[in-house]
């Protein structure tokens, strides 16, 4: 049911935690019964220097949060926001139908990050 990427990232997540102050905060979730993920991101000279998460939900969603945070480190916001569908699919590996909602979660996290970047661009003129 679980591929090796999901097993490794769920069983030994490296990016769980809270930042005292974050430059960007992303939150995805279903208020009724679904998974919840909160990601905090720290920027340093337009590159992501740290990303931590808290996640509540199925094993694949917890793993997704860890994979997402890991993929952000030392990347520019521009490069993260330009990731294509194929790249994002490879991040999670092959998923069974019951895990596929985590692909939506990963897409939503990228989407929210893009929106934040646009908002920051507007704020910075």
């Amino acid at each position, binding site marked *: *049911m*679980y591929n090796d990427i*999901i*097993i490794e990232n*769920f*069983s*030994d*997540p490296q990016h*769980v935690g809270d930042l005292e102050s974050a430059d960007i905060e992303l939150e995805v*979730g279903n*208020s*009724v*019964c*679904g*998974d*919840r993920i909160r990601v905090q991101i720290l920027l340093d000279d337009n590159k992501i220097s740290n990303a931590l998460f*808290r*996640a*509540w*939900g*199925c*094993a694949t969603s*917890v793993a997704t949060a860890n994979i997402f945070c890991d993929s952000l480190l030392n990347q520019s916001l521009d490069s993260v926001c330009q990731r294509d569908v194929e790249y994002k699919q490879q991040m999670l590996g092959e998923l069974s139908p*019951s895990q596929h909602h985590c692909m939506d979660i990963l897409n939503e996290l990228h989407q929210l990050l893009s929106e934040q970047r646009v908002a920051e661009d507007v704020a910075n003129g």
Partner: protein
Amino acid sequence: MINECFEQLEKLGLDPVKVALSSVSELYAMPDSQLLAFKTELILQAYRFHYENNAFYRASCDQKGVTPNSVSTPEDLLKLPLIPISLFKSNDSHKLLSVNLKDIELEMRSTGTSGIPSVSRRCSDTVDNAILGIYSMYREFLKISKGAGLYLCPSTEEIPEMGMIKALNMLAGLLDTHQFMVKNESLVVEDALSQLDEWKNKFDRHIIGPPFLINRFIRYLKATNTRIKLDKGSFIITLGGWKRFSGEMLSREEFNQECMEYLGVEPSQIRDIYALVESNVVAIDDEHGVKHVSPFIHFSIRNPKKLDEEVADGEVGQLAILDPLARSTPGFILTEDLVRLLPEQSPSGRSGQRMQYIMRLPESTEFGCCAVNLDKRLDDVEAEQNCPVVA
């Protein structure tokens, strides 16, 4: 004698847990002391398995000085370290696994008012045990093998991982037909009524769902002064909390009265089920309205202020569940529920433990299961529909 019995079963290549799961009536016919000895052996076998296979649990046991060598009698069950329910909601719930994640077959969840899901993970062996245990309890107390089920809840297709719905949906396999009446977060009571009418004189019609939603159905019947006469073989089957999102408590007595008045059933046809997604226990009302704990699972009722002490039978305390069916995570759980064990003899003649649910712990951070959120969502949708203000 029990030890010899277990040795004989194992010599024959039989799993004592599976034997117990298919012998519910026989277990309930045992004298209490014998049943407790039998359960104790099942629980201690499970304890040894988790101690050997779960580093996190073993470290907790070692820290408390409890090892497989230090537990052997029913009195020792009190020593087994308990997993608080909150750990099933934590970020690092992977540490609860006694098997590798790749052996996990099914994830189930429940979400209370906090919105944080409690996720329980079951391996193939645990799924086998859970399914056998639930079906054998359904057969013992409901004896259902036919009829039509009006489900006043969403389908497992809409929310596939929700433990409560999954357990209720298992009943559908015993029926001839069924319909889920909550679709896209909406319950159209008129549709439910016409479905019942369509099944009239063809099937025993059962109404199944969380108490709130059945109560919502009855409120409509009351408001429209509609009375239904269900069938002699019908059941009203409830599973889920009795406290609404607003904090309002549904009264079981009032609920029963209204079922009798508006659905035309006798009290013996109204059956409530107590279950928790983190455990494999189902406690089901018998025909006298007395809830029986699955005979292979042990309830230990603790003093909430001193959790290493049990309260006397009949007194209210915090429920600890010792569940030998759980193989993927330790089934020794400290719940946030206040219950009491009923000391009186069962009028049904069954031995074992009987329980009464009282309430969630007052200091619990949340109450209810997913049904509570569902009830709120239906309220919100209704309020949106009735709001005269243009959005």
